[in-house]
């Protein structure tokens, strides 16, 4: 969705006094995010543009939003390695992309009405939540751009991380010369928004299938919405439940097992960047004392779930966990696995463990 806003943004950069406007819009607004409901909320960019605002009013909002972002400076960075003003200003641009209907040329008239997907008052509320409550940008706009996809996300669902994008490439590599895997049954454990399941669902063969599991009903709903949006209802099946529990009927049949399970050590949760620690579901982040509870649990089950030659790829917290996992798979898992590899992410951090069932 391209926004031809650039010529007018230069007018947005003129300072204007917006404090009065800000006060009158914000005093009566709801200031807390909507409660986690089971029904997936429509992301901003999919809402119909039934609202409108005068161009000059939108300009005032933009000025206010920018000055709020600029006032942050590097305070969040210093506090908890959060975003700085530059990043926040970039998010304002993206927020506008999602909230404003793409308009046509000829925008000189300041009185012209702009079509919005939310009321201008809500736009104030959304940005206020972003900065003052550190509500994640992705929850504010209701979506995350991940790989070539746009996935709906909301409170109660983990926001897919850029590191996890690589898992789809790892799967892509192994199915390339391997029809058994390409046309086989895969499982994405703890699917959250459905990111990995959808990502691999799009690259498997025509007979390839994915079962995505998650403990959280909210996640299952959101994942279902995303699966539908990408037309993968016949490829990706969602099953609610804990890890491999919903897959008991698939023992020995899986061609592949992938997961990005919670891997943060419990003690680290309180020190997390506020966007993460205060707003994303702890159940998707907390991996126990050394962060490895769920990883080990999945590894324990992997041997009986994968068919001979089956592939697995798990995301971890880093080098220590990767080494621990590999050691476990080599020694304790009954010698069922081979070709164990540790794969770094693009920052050079040892991020993934992959391997095959013998």
């Amino acid at each position, binding site marked *: 969705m391209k926004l031809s806003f650039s010529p007018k943004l230069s007018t947005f950069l003129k300072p204007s006094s917006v404090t009065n406007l800000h006060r009158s819009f914000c005093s009566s607004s709801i200031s807390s995010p909507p409660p986690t409901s089971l029904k997936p909320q429509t992301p901003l960019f999919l809402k119909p543009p039934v609202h409108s605002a005068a161009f000059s009013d939108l300009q005032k909002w933009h000025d206010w939003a920018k000055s709020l972002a600029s006032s942050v400076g590097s305070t969040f960075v210093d506090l908890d*390695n*959060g*975003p700085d003003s530059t*990043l926040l200003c970039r998010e304002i641009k*993206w927020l506008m992309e999602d909230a404003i209907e793409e308009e046509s040329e000829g925008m000189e008239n300041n009185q012209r009405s702009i079509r919005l997907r939310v009321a201008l008052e809500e736009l104030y509320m959304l940005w206020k939540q972003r900065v003052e409550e550190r509500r*994640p*940008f*992705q929850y504010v706009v209701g979506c995350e*751009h*991940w*790989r*070539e*996809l746009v996935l709906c996300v909301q409170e109660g669902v*983990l*926001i897919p*991380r*850029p*590191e*996890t*994008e690589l898992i789809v*490439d790892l799967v892509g590599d192994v199915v390339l010369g391997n029809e058994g895997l390409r046309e086989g049954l895969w499982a994405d454990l703890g699917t959250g928004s459905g990111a990995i399941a959808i990502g691999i669902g799009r690259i498997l063969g025509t007979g390839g299938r994915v079962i995505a599991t998650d403990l959280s009903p909210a996640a299952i709903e959101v994942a279902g919405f995303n699966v539908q949006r990408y037309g993968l209802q016949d490829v990706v099946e969602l099953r609610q439940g804990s890890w491999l529990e919903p897959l008991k009927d698939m023992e020995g049949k899986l061609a592949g097992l992938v997961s*990005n399970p*919670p*891997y*943060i050590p419990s003690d*680290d949760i309180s020190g*997390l*960047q506020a*966007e*993460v620690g205060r707003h*994303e579901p702890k159940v*998707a*982040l907390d991996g126990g004392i050394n962060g490895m509870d769920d990883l080990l649990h999945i590894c324990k089950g992997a041997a009986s779930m994968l068919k001979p030659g089956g592939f697995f790829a798990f*995301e971890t*917290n*880093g*080098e220590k966990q990767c080494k621990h996992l590999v050691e476990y798979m080599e020694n304790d898992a009954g010698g069922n696995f081979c070709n164990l*590899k*540790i*794969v*770094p*992410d*693009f*920052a*050079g*951090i*040892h*991020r993934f463990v992959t391997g095959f069932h013998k």
Partner: protein
Amino acid sequence: MALAQSGWKLSYSNSWVRVVGVSRRSSGAAAKPAIFQASCPPPSPAIAVKIRRKCFINWRWTQQPPQLLEDKKSDASFFIRCSKYGSSIGAASNTNSGKGYLASTDQELMSQCQMDTFKASGPGGQHRNKRESAVRLKHLPTGLTAQAVEDRSQHMNRASALARLRALIALKVRNTVDLDAYSPPQELLQILPPKSTIRGSDCGPQIGPNNPKFILGMQALLDLIFAVEGSVSEAAKFLGLSTGALSRLILSNDSLRLAVNELRFSKGMKPLK
């Protein structure tokens, strides 16, 4: 360093390249990290990477993390990134590196790059929600950089940056051409208009300037034009085209036109318009 004794030399303009994970197959020795102090000049327009060696060296790409991240001694220290894809470069003096890079897969090309804007501040992954989706790729063997900032997805920006890098490599990295025994490569024939007398009927339809495959042909075309020192009429003869037809082809792509005119300017020739 042990490797220096093997008579192995890497000459790369005026700079050295820092290398991680090299093993010598001849001695059967296990992979030892070999580190050379690196300083890198600003990228120059045409760079040829020449690797000369006396004994065969099998480069093994390891999965060891680039510990060199901490080393701040060299100004522009870089390292050949780890890749899970085993790759061996048993290269002789390589004057066709430009073509080699473009023939690589995205993953291979990516593994030769350093992603500059990806700052690993902290553990990353689930710990972090800071979407710095802009990607800047520095192609280490050539020093060329390409970036993409438009998309909100890092993956998409990575793909765009890689595509731009390919175009840059085609424009800036030259392969040598033997004019005496010149036979235009297939990728060049494919971008020529059908009226070319050497094109042949089995070439398929003409690949236009917006097709990603145009880049390979563009590189080959520039190799030829550089070899004839910017003379479009000379190059046209090799391609079975009239001078006018070749001019039109060059003018059909802005970057190609700029590259050709830059060369012509340096030779005191008039630019194509």
